[in-house]
């Protein structure tokens, strides 16, 4: 039985620039089941953060549908959407800029509760804040601290507590650990995992770090220049990557284990900006196994194996 919490259909976001339309997110579709984690991986500028923000309409999508818990969010007015946001929360990348420097820990965590009128009365709110602080592992004595007095890991815990305070169903984690040191990174990842087990949360985990996403996600979607190029269950994707870009990406991870030796696929060139794209494969310029079809039209995302989707002309005839 599949219990789908979020369905994104043909989501597009084009930004107007002086040189033409920038295709930040181009026709992305996916679904997430309740309680699962979808990892979105890609390099900077591939549209992964924009996708996350479009889902909760922090950025208005150009077109496409976002169906959350049976409701079509794209049809809601700004006012209705503000109420709905409670169920979708976001954890930001930079713990240094995602907290208002003038708010204490108490104020920062209490703010969403007060805003959404979940609990009334100072004492009751404070009690809830303390509960949340305990959940995310913040000592009680920090309740009146300001963000600048705390380190990155603790700030990120405040960000998590803030997101949890409204009891959301879906949390979008936008690079939640990439600004943190390794030992702190592991603390936060474990915390997020525990919270998922305990509260049945659903995550969208946006990151550029493949080893983190592998550890954390049930499904992984790989994005390149606004397009989803491959999507598969994590194990399948790592065991059997199909898209040339995914293969290169996987082989590029430096592995901290001397026993682990692998052939590295070095890509030529760099990710270009997705402005005024011609109708051809976006990866073609960097691809190490292009075929004649690549110039023709953009490949479509096809299910090559059960639950394994690839968008590459090499797999055109292999639809499952």
């Amino acid at each position, binding site marked *: 039985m599949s219990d789908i919490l979020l369905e994104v259909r043909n989501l597009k976001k084009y930004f107007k620039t002086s040189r033409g339309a920038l295709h930040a997110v181009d026709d992305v579709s996916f679904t997430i089941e309740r309680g699962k984690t979808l990892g979105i991986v890609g*390099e900077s500028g591939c549209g992964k953060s924009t996708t996350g923000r479009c889902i909760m309409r922090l950025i208005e999508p150009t077109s496409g549908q976002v169906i959350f818990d049976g409701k079509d969010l794209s049809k809601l007015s700004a006012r209705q959407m503000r109420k709905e946001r409670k169920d979708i929360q976001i954890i930001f990348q930079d713990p240094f800029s995602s907290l208002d420097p003038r708010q204490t820990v108490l104020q920062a965590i209490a703010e969403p509760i007060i805003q959404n009128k979940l609990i009334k009365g100072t004492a009751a709110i404070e009690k809830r804040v303390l509960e949340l602080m305990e959940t995310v592992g913040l000592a009680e004595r920090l309740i009146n601290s300001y963000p600048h007095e705390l380190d990155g890991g603790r700030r990120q815990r405040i960000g998590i507590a803030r997101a949890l305070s409204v009891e959301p169903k879906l949390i979008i984690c936008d690079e939640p650990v990439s600004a943190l*040191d390794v*030992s702190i990174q592991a603390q936060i990842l*474990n915390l997020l995992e525990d919270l998922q087990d305990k509260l049945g949360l659903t995550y969208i985990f946006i990151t550029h770090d493949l080893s983190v996403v592998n550890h954390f996600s049930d499904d992984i979607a790989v994005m390149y220049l606004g397009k989803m190029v491959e999507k598969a269950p994590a194990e399948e994707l790592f065991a059997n990557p199909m898209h040339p870009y995914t293969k290169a990406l996987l082989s590029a*991870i430096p592995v901290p*284990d001397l*026993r682990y030796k692998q052939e590295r696929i*070095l890509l030529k060139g760099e990710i270009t900006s997705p402005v005024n794209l011609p109708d051809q494969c976006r990866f073609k310029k960097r691809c190490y196994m292009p075929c004649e079809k690549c110039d023709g039209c953009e490949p479509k995302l096809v299910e090559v194996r059960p639950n394994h989707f690839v968008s590459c002309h090499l797999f055109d005839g292999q639809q499952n």
Partner: protein
Amino acid sequence: MDEEKRLLVVDHLTVNYELEDETVEAVRDVSFSLDKGKTLGLVGETGAGKTTTALAILNLIPDPPGVIKNGTVELEGQNVLEKGAKDMSHIRGKDVSMIFQDPMTSLNPVFTVGDQIAESIMIHEKVDKKEAFEKAKRMLEVVGIPGERAYEYPHQFSGGMKQRVVIAIALACNPQLLIADEPTTALDVTIQAQVLDLMRNLKRKYGMAMILITHDLGIIAETCDDVAVMYAGQIIERGTLEEIFNHARHPYTEGLFNSLPNIADRKERLKPIPGLMPDPTKLPKGCAFAPRCPYARPDCIDVMPEEIHFGGTHYCRCSAYREEGFHIEREDIEV
């Protein structure tokens, strides 16, 4: 060991940052040496003192607030810490070069990249502008950028390309030692792979030594011959790549490895190091890692751990090893 091959000897280096009302002990009694043509990886978390150590090698500690309290840095037998500004400018770039983390800000936006490479060549070699520019073009080719692009400005280059230009500047005068401070942290994975590959090839080609500063153990595994793990301003473990990765001894080194997601076993739970880095203005008398250490003895925090040697160059600073038969949980990896 052959004295001839020694390139760099850092001895008892201690650097403090003396602020208005507190003193940050950034580097505490750090000693290590580096042979010609070898690569040393300096690993550690934010604030471990990696960058300060590197800056001290170049005699570039900002003063004030930085004060070199003690120690010597000998580059080919000469103590760079005693050199004046003029001598240093000859050494920097010619004998030692440094690559910084952020390629976006280490290039001057108002000069062409060719001019910037040529400038460094002209400081150290007796060549005229034209010749220097020709050499600059050749250097660009070396780092994989077409020579014609020497006439372009930094903003016309992407992040990875800029870092290549920075490398070209650093290598323009064939330095003996290259210090790379998180050279790929600001880059994407596929670009990082390109840049690391380039650095490895160039190192082999020119036979220079390198100190690679990073927090990424994966990069260390691929690039380095020797590793020094830093924590709270000290080297807490040092050895060959194989010794550190397969026979780690210090509890902190173990903790670092355990914190990383295991690529082979994705469901394995991470084992983070509990707690936080100590405040560098209030370091304990003894072992700075003791408050986070699962093996800590009651007196660890009061007694400064000494170097415990395990043969060869491998040593760690951990008092627990004074006890017969002590070992950490992480098992040695036999190859």
